[in-house]
């Protein structure tokens, strides 16, 4: 059955290192979201794309975070350089159309030491 996939599932890295997270949305879904979840802040929207074009990345610290969709089957979220406060679970979600439910991936648990 169709699912959103994310890699890696877990990532432990040291402060200052570059981290790249990948997401494969469900085929045919034209909107892709990146979220970050922490105990303190809950679920925060970082960025989203429609038809591969970035529409809103106001939730993302732009000095170190970047999000791209090189093609319809791949979305990436990059942090460079990473900091301990970036430790969180990062979720990708995709959606078909404008008013439907979102389908979430399993998340990438990032730990920055």
């Amino acid at each position, binding site marked *: 059955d169709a699912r*959103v996939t994310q890699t890696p599932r877990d990532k432990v890295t040291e402060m200052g290192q570059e981290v790249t997270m990948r997401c494969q949305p469900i085929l045919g879904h034209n909107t892709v*979201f990146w979220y970050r979840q922490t105990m303190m802040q*809950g*679920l925060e*929207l970082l960025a*989203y794309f429609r038809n591969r074009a970035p*529409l*809103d990345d106001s939730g993302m610290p732009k000095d170190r975070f970047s999000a791209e969709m090189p093609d319809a089957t791949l979305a990436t979220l990059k942090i460079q350089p990473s900091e301990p406060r970036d430790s969180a679970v990062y*979720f990708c*979600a995709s959606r078909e159309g*404008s*008013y*439907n*439910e*979102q*389908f*979430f*991936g*399993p*998340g990438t648990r990032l730990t920055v030491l």
Partner: protein
Amino acid sequence: SQQGEEDPQALSIQEGENATMNCSYKTSINNLQWYRQNSGRGLVHLILIRSNEREKHSGRLRVTLDTSKKSSSLLITASRAADTASYFCATPNAGNMLTFGGGTRLMVKP
């Protein structure tokens, strides 16, 4: 600030009992969605209720929406241990991006 706020933050019940979670939101919406998140997993969509609907059912789930009070409730009947999870309400903003509440952590004891 969050658009949706769930109440209570945590709920512990015995298997077989009903669980009710509430969500309040601030601005006008065209739909409201409920999601479940099991520990260590991504969110799973449960049900979407549109602004012109007052009640919706899906299996053991019943969702109500009161747009005059800007509130919604999720009722899980005859709860099971497998229903243990966090439950989130989400509402779309003007740009149709979902804003999630802080969630209700439900514990169903066998």
